[in-house]
């Protein structure tokens, strides 16, 4: 598949959610995430490069480089070609550097792993998963074709998407889905029914009459002025020596965790979140006066507002639990979190929240603020937001790959560079992986998390990336021996 007009004329403004990643990135949190597929053999880099070339041609969005305008950042088409490389940087190493026009993703391999790393302003977890699915699918097909002597030289490489023109166009530099669904329009464009219904329920209601759901926070400045009596606990720790993200992966049978969550009558994400809260509380020893733990949970908007675009299209929902106010056992906490999460992660609530955000973005006064100033404002808002968060959790759910990749790929997992302790869950092939990332060297909360699982009879295996000098020296000695 070839693109019709590979020119630099093609550009698109960065969407509402993506701008925050540019403003909020720091040395220890470059806003990069990775998705990984582990195959049943050592990865062949030549075949992987071939597969990447095929997949790259199908995703014009991934050709984009990031540029800076006076008022906004924008993505612009480029003629660059990506190359696979062995994994020689720590997880979620920075990708975007201002003034440098490089691709916003990289594909690396190590032993049996194929890893896609992406700067978050380009795409979200779902979009990245589409790309990785196509990449791994193409890789496995090319490899199997190579194994069969009498195989045809032309290998059919279907995609994770329907291959009609509409779907292909959606993979390009199209306007973002936020604008498509939530921007107020007055030219009588067709709005899908489900959005109309969601608007009826929430978005179009006058602001004053809007009932605020429990846990939903006031917009604007109100969110900076958090009531003092509910002090949110924030994890402190020793930063890793070179500011890299500390990553520890826990792998376990998905069915066992699912059974535990079902026994409490909650979904896996909220069960694991409750377990995370409990792990933080146990490893902290004493929460002091800050007895509220809170988590930010991204919600994929495509499940409510259909979109084929791999660009960012998610919103975050915040849930919290205060210790010492009633029952604090794992089951009760997870049920309480679930009760908060369900109404917030619903189409009407999200439509209302995003409607507000987009309205803010499209305010004439804010639009004419130059980009560097906008960045500072966003950074300040992000700082205010961070003050109310203990952890972040993200769950991509159960992934099924198209055959023949499905049977050749074992566990799949993902990492996110982190400003605070965080986990990313994902399941494939009956294995659930919970990857913890953190800017700190300490692993106390991961230890408590793993122990809670093993206490309940779950088999857990741990893989950790080495971050401290002592750990790396040990690896060097083991390698020499």
């Amino acid at each position, binding site marked *: 598949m070839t693109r019709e007009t590979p020119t630099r004329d093609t550009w698109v403004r960065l969407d509402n959610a993506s701008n925050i990643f540019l403003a909020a990135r720091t040395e220890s949190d470059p806003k990069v995430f990775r998705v990984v597929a582990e195959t049943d053999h050592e990865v062949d880099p030549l075949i992987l490069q071939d597969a990447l070339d095929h997949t790259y041609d199908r995703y014009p969005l991934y050709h984009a480089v990031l540029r800076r305008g006076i*008022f*906004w950042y924008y993505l612009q088409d480029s003629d660059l070609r990506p190359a696979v490389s062995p*994994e020689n940087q720590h997880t979620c190493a920075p990708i975007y550097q201002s003034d440098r026009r490089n691709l916003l993703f990289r594909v690396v391999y*190590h032993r049996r*792993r194929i890893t896609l790393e992406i700067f978050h302003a380009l795409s979200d977890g779902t979009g990245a998963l589409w790309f990785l699915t196509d990449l791994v699918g193409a890789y496995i097909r090319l490899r199997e074709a190579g194994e069969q002597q009498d195989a045809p030289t032309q290998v059919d490489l279907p995609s994770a998407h329907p291959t009609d023109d509409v779907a292909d166009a959606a993979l390009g530099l199209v306007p973002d889905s936020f604008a498509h669904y939530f921007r107020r329009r007055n030219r009588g464009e067709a709005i899908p029914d489900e959005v109309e219904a969601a608007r009826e329920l929430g978005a179009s209601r006058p602001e004053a009459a809007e009932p605020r759901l429990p846990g939903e926070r006031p917009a604007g400045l109100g969110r900076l002025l958090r009531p003092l009596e509910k002090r949110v606990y924030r994890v402190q720790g020793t930063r890793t020596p070179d500011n890299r993200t500390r990553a*520890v992966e826990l792998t376990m049978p998905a069915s066992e965790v699912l059974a535990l969550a079902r026994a409490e009558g909650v979904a896996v994400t909220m069960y694991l979140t409750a377990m995370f809260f409990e792990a933080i509380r146990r490893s902290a020893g004493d929460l002091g006066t800050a007895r509220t733990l809170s988590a930010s949970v991204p919600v994929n908007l495509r499940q409510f507002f259909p979109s084929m675009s791999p660009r960012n299209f998610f919103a975050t929902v915040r849930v919290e639990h205060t210790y010492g106010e009633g029952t604090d056992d794992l089951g009760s906490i997870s049920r309480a979190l679930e009760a908060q999460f369900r109404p917030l992660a619903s189409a009407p609530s999200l439509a209302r929240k995003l409607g507000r955000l987009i309205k803010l973005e499209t305010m004439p006064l804010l639009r004419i603020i130059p980009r560097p100033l906008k960045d500072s404002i966003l950074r300040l808002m992000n700082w205010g937001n961070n003050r109310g968060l203990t952890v972040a959790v993200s769950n991509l759910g159960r992934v099924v790959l198209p055959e023949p990749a499905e049977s050749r790929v074992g566990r799949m997992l993902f990492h996110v560079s982190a400003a605070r302790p965080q986990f990313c869950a994902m399941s494939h092939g009956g294995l659930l992986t919970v990857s913890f990332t953190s800017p700190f060297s300490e692993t106390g909360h991961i*230890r408590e998390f793993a122990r809670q699982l093993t206490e309940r009879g779950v088999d857990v295996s*741990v893989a950790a990336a080495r971050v401290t000098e002592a750990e*790396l020296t040990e690896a060097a000695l083991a390698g020499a021996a």
Partner: protein
Amino acid sequence: MARCEACNVEIEGSWAHCPLCGNVVTGSPAPSPLPAIPLSFSRRRILRALFLISLAIILASFAAQLFFSHEFANIGVARSIWLGLTALWLVVLTAARKRRNLAKSTVYLVILVSLICVYWDFLTGWHGWALTYTVPILCASAIVALLVTVRLMRIESGEHIVYSGLTVLLGLLPIGFVAFGWVTTPWPSIICGALSLVALVIIQVFGGRAVRRELGKRLHL
């Protein structure tokens, strides 16, 4: 696979101690799915600190000049050396920082050096040499340099067009100097202005579409 009895977990990779709790592990090591990446230290923080300190010293130097009014004839040579060194420092700093985009770097340098020269002229008692000679010559050479550079280096129009345009517009400013009677002789300004007009026509003819496209992109609201 190795095992930590305290945490009751299997451990991938060759860890002598459990990465979670630090207890000694049992069993034989398995290969790690994650590579051991040596520590790396970026120079970015120290470079940023040096940059900010430099900038502070440069600004302080320029400000300090105000305290030595031009009646102090005896500091004349010292002042020139001091201003020259500071200006050079600023030029090197700017050129290094903006090295990835030649056109952008040119605009920055034209503006900075012009401002320094005007200030210098003001400090030494307004003889008008900065506006009469330095600024027009600077602008004119920047325009010629850019026209040559983008051809020789085959820089794509989208990459430089906005900054080339800015340089050319800066080249029109000296015409204003003549109009306001700020100059002692009009010729450098007139030559610079004429050159800018020629460059403007060249850009309009050969890159008008690119300019409009690029401006549309950068000024998009």
